[in-house]
């Protein structure tokens, strides 16, 4: 079994551990309602691990080769969402296939990273100029706009930093990168004044939930109370109260970290963050040991995707980031997101597997 010999056991093990932490907390969030979600999550976790191994066995190269096909498929799915998508919580993000609802914007993140890796990796010569930069932006902006329209501002918030990290590692000139940021700053007011009144208000609430004390502001405060009341050591497993009284909305999905922080305290929160640091570090070391430029870009994108999800999701529960529908990687309830993150890990594991092929 050469395949298993080449497996980066530590990375896989830590990811599985994080996934189980998720199941445990979903159980707690949902225990009073029968624990249905925890069971489903466990099923999804096995599916996700299975898919991860398949991806690992196939290797990342075929995915890179098919990137543009996947890209077109993602655009088509996002288009379908906009036309016939199922509306949940005011946003149109799901497509139903019988009993299963999938969220194309989750997969779109990974497809975007694959597409950019494939494109930038084969055009290393453009790194010194502007045309590669512009093309990469255009590639990103199309799905980005479709996702913003759902509206899913959170997912959109992930795309641009990931793109920047990839361009940075690709070797784009710093002054172009900085120039792009400044150009964005220049166009922001024009964009702002072109918005309708209610759109402006939605964005303002997104940035500062306090201006909507009965809606997002309430969620923000309740989430802070949940996290803060956990104290140093927490209230113990199943001991949280905020989610029991339904104070914490979406407690098994977007606010799952609040449940963990309330029951396991500061120590538990830090432990989970450390687990994330471990997998990020292992991915970085895998990245450094490959010479394939496409693989390097792919790993960079995936690491950035993890980091920004963690930062925005946990930041939201402590009140330093806007309230968005972004999941906590491998912990939040939800099949689409779980599969997406494990496929990403599968891709990184396959980079490790193929590192020695010179």
């Amino acid at each position, binding site marked *: 079994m050469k395949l298993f010999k080449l497996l980066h056991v530590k990375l896989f093990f830590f990811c599985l551990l994080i996934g189980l932490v998720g199941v445990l907390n979903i159980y707690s969030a949902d225990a009073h309602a029968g624990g249905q979600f925890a069971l489903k999550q466990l099923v999804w976790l096995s599916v996700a691990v299975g898919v991860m191994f398949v991806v690992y066995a196939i290797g990342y190269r075929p995915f890179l080769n098919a990137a543009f096909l996947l890209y077109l498929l993602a655009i088509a799915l996002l288009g379908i969402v906009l036309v016939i998508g199922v509306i949940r919580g005011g946003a149109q993000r799901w497509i139903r296939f019988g009993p299963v609802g999938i969220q194309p914007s989750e997969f779109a993140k990974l497809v975007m990273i694959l597409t950019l890796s494939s494109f930038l990796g084969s055009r290393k010569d453009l790194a010194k100029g502007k045309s590669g930069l512009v093309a990469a932006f255009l590639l990103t902006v199309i799905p980005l706009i479709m996702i913003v329209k759902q509206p899913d501002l959170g997912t959109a918030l992930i795309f641009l930093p990931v793109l920047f990290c990839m361009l940075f590692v690709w070797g784009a000139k710093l002054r172009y990168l900085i120039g792009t940021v400044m150009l964005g700053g220049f166009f922001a007011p024009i964009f702002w004044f072109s918005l309708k009144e209610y759109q402006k208000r939605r964005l303002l609430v997104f940035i500062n939930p306090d201006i909507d004390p009965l809606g997002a502001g309430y969620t923000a405060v309740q989430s802070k109370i949940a996290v803060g009341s956990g104290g140093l050591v927490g209230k113990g497993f199943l001991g949280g109260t905020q989610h029991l009284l339904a104070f914490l909305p979406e407690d098994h999905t977007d606010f799952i970290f609040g449940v963990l922080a309330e029951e396991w305290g500061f120590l538990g929160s830090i432990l989970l963050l450390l687990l994330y*640091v471990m997998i990020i570090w292992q991915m970085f070391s895998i990245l450094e040991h490959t010479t394939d430029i496409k693989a390097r870009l792919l790993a960079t994108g995936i690491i950035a995707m993890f980091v920004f999800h963690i930062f925005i999701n946990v930041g939201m529960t402590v009140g330093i980031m806007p309230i968005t529908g972004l999941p906590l990687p491998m912990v939040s309830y939800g099949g689409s997101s779980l599969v997406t993150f494990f496929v990403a890990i599968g891709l990184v594991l396959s980079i490790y597997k193929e590192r020695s092929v010179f």
Partner: protein
Amino acid sequence: MDSARLTFLRSVFLLLLCVLAVNLFFCQVINGQYYLTLSEQNRIRLIPLPALRGQVLDSAGRVLTGNRPSYDVSIVYQDFDRNQIDLLAKILNLRKSDIKSVVDKAKASPFSPVLLEADAGMEEIFQLEELNPEIKGVYMDIHGRRNYPWREAAGHITGYIGLISRKEYENGDRVRFLFSDYIGRSGIEKAFDEHLRGYHGGRQIEVNSRGQVLKTMSERRPTKGHDIYLTIDAELQSALYELIKDKRAVVGIMDLKKDAVLALVTAPSFDPNAFVMPSRAGERVGYLSSSGKPMVNQAIQGGFPLGSIFKLVVALGALEEKIITPGTTFHCDGTFTLKPGQRPFKCWNPAGHGTMNLNQAVMQSCNIFFYECGKRLGVERIASYARQLGLGSTWDLELGTMFPGIVPDQQWKLDRIGDRWYQGETISLAIGQSYLLVSPLQILRLVATIANDGRVAEPHMVDYERSGLHETARKKNMAHINAAHFRELKAAMREAIESSRGTGRLARMEGLSVAGKTSTAQAPTGEGHSWFAGFAPFEAPEVAIVAFIEHGGSGGLAAAPLAREALEIWQSQKNARVTNSAELSA
């Protein structure tokens, strides 16, 4: 270069995770105790701060639709003590079982106020205030309740508001619609809901274990809705309503220079206050189920046969098409036959009017003269002139749904009835019978258009400039009819009032030269509908008027005197204003 960038990226990522760790440390370890108390006591309360709806004001700034202070009593389950139920029942005069069911309902949202009694009396509020320190979890809050001081007189114009449905709440913007919010259901309240509706606010407060407010955690102040000014004169509106309140009738008066409706009264009417006062539920049901349909604004939604006033349209068509000149005469011997042997059409005067020219025919409302005109014009041309003069269509009156009326022609009959048009029907149409249906306000528009010498009037009742609203440019439509023809017709309408043989002579009055035309329209059952349409003063028209009485009988005997009374009120109020302002300037 490449590895330097990777190292940099790794540091940035580490920094981001450190930021999280530091924030978690502050939130959980440093402030942990504070959040723990908040979580144990669940001491956050959400208090919505509803925005006041804008007011509707008349042309003199009098309030047509306003807000009066009203007290609501609500309870917060978490802080409420069930032993207080007896006491509350006594003070608020409510059944204990009712209070209990509200308390049970409040259990579902234990930290938000749940309404116990809306619009409580002042006496009850004073008693509760006196008990304030002892009573727990009972809140009184004051807010604006919609108030319609002119009641039935302006009910069809102000409209009313009702509670939003669950669907409307879910589709609406949360800042604009609270969970149990009101929304305009008719009249100005409905048509300008968006403009009148404010932006709601809210407050997040922290309370101590006894429910006392410790501090406001965050707050957004509500923004009041915009006011709307109407061209309606509330005093005139009210006085006119007094004239018709026991009938089924409509009176409308409009200013010809501004196309502005000064008063538009419809009876039966309803009191919009009944829709915002919980104690008047019975009245609401009565309005909605009454066979008299008081909720229907017959002035714009009713469709009635018109009768002789339509002769004005036929006269204009015949003049413009050169079928007649002012000098053309036809002989009236009381009957008219299309072809020998067919059933004759009759004049209302069986003895016959003798030889008539246009002026005499309008003044005495001779049918035979217009049968002759109608026969020569044909249905298509009659219909086309009727449409040019504003019949058969709606315009933007700001009161919502209007009945466009029916102007029949050959195609219409084929589509709707499935039969061809007969010439006999043209003869009926020429005197405003047949399938023709109009609303009273369309007739006000028609007579205003005649008074304007052909500029098609567009009566409206919102003063856009004063209301700060953008008005879509009103197009100035001119009917394709020579102005001289209008002047000819207006002179005849003046004769109809002034002449001792004029059908409208009961509309004659002191100090104001009225011109007009009456109508007695055959109704499918019962007495005919009584109509009067006119304008004044004849020399330089200022106002147009329509008076309509459902099954009121003869237009000359019922609607014409009603119009006279209405114009007398308009004139005396105008004179009083002139005297007033003269005194003020002196």
